[in-house]
């Protein structure tokens, strides 16, 4: 009889603690994901530095620019590529700042590495990489640093909020009521 009573109490306690435990686990997983995500910008920056090293060595593994030009046709002139690079840098900075302002969860870092590698290649095909290398490097470094900063601040804010929720959950056994942000 006493054993049955004990089992009943245990079952009720487990039922009460299971949702709390799953909520807690969910919050911990989310914090872990955010901490992992906060390094995304740095990974993209590292990849870009690797691509830049290849460009610095004049893409030694690629066929000569004349061979590619003979096969694919003449590339755009360096002036046109430079104009597009300025336009791209300006747009990327404005986009990143807008996302920073509105607090959007956007994972755009790695595509920038692709765009920048494209600029390196176009300059390489036009045989103007030596003159324009630092322009692409500067553009990439600026855009990716800004993106890293945006992702890092976004994740830091989210992690702080999740930690507060975790503390509230531990204290009261439930999540704090969802409040609509006054600033959104």
């Amino acid at each position, binding site marked *: 009889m006493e054993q049955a009573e004990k089992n009943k109490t245990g079952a009720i306690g487990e039922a009460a603690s299971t949702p709390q435990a799953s909520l807690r686990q969910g919050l911990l997983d989310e914090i872990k994901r955010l901490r992992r995500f906060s390094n995304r910008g740095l990974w993209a920056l590292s990849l870009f530095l690797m691509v830049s090293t290849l460009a610095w060595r004049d893409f030694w593994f690629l066929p000569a620019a004349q061979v590619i030009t003979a096969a694919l046709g003449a590339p755009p002139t360096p*002036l046109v590529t*430079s104009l597009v690079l300025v336009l791209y*840098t*300006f747009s990327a*900075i404005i986009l990143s700042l807008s996302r920073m302002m509105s607090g959007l969860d956007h994972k755009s870092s790695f595509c920038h590495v692709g765009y920048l590698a494209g600029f390196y290649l176009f300059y390489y095909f036009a045989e103007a990489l030596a003159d*324009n290398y630092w322009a692409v490097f*500067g553009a990439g*470094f600026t855009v990716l*640093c*800004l993106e890293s900063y945006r992702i890092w601040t976004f994740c830091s804010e989210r992690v702080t909020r999740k930690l507060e929720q975790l503390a509230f959950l531990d204290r009261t056994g439930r999540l704090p009521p969802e409040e609509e942000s006054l600033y959104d």
Partner: protein
Amino acid sequence: MFDKIAGRALVPVGLVVTGFLAVCFVLLYAAIKQVVIRDSIGQANNLAGIVLKSTRYAMMKSDSDLNRAIIQNISAQNGVQHVRIFNKRGVVAFSSKPEEVNRQVDKKAEGCIVCHEKQAPVTTLGNMQKARTFTNTAGDEVLAITAPIYNDPECANAACHFHPATQKVLGTLDIGLSQEATLAALASIRVQMLIFSILTLVLTIAGVVTLLKMIVLVPMRKLQEYTERSERNVDTLRPTDLPYELDKIAESYYFIRIKLNEIEQQSFKSVKDAGVCTNK
């Protein structure tokens, strides 16, 4: 650093302005450099044309002494590094350096390979293709132009020495010009642009810092000091001349403090009254 408003606001601004300015600086300098080099190649091509026109009469007359004198005089000009005329077989026929005369030149050498890359040599070249740059033994940057000497009808039909009409190119003129003046001009442009960029950067950052401090940081500090002081002393005066938003916060805080003070006084009074009643 990133906990404070100044750090959070200034890092992206500094990064964006510096990065964009650096990109524009490099691209603008590359574009200017291209224009300056294209101009200097154009001028070098014109000079090569002048040399060819000057030596044309002497060549028609097969006057070697006159040709030699013209080449010596041109090479004496400031900035001219070398002048050579090659015949069809690639042998130096005339040169500003007498020791080079009658020497065979390797067709694979820089300046020759442009036309002799394939089995059949190229007979026409664009202005940019005629040019090449290299560093000579003295360590000077040289811009050289290789201009073909074409077989005109008067050359083919000349009485003095006959060239068959089927021979398109009779030889080449190779003229080397010092790049010293062009490089000095580019260096001067680079320094001026760098100074301009640094000044723009400093002014932008200084402007942003000043405005941020004046509009946000100083009023925030006032508000922070007010809240800290009013915790110790209720009669602390509300700071004036705050921006609208911060003034609203200060006002709300002021009324909250007054209410809190009233509640504290009431509870103190009721405790005191209760103590008096108990004593009675």
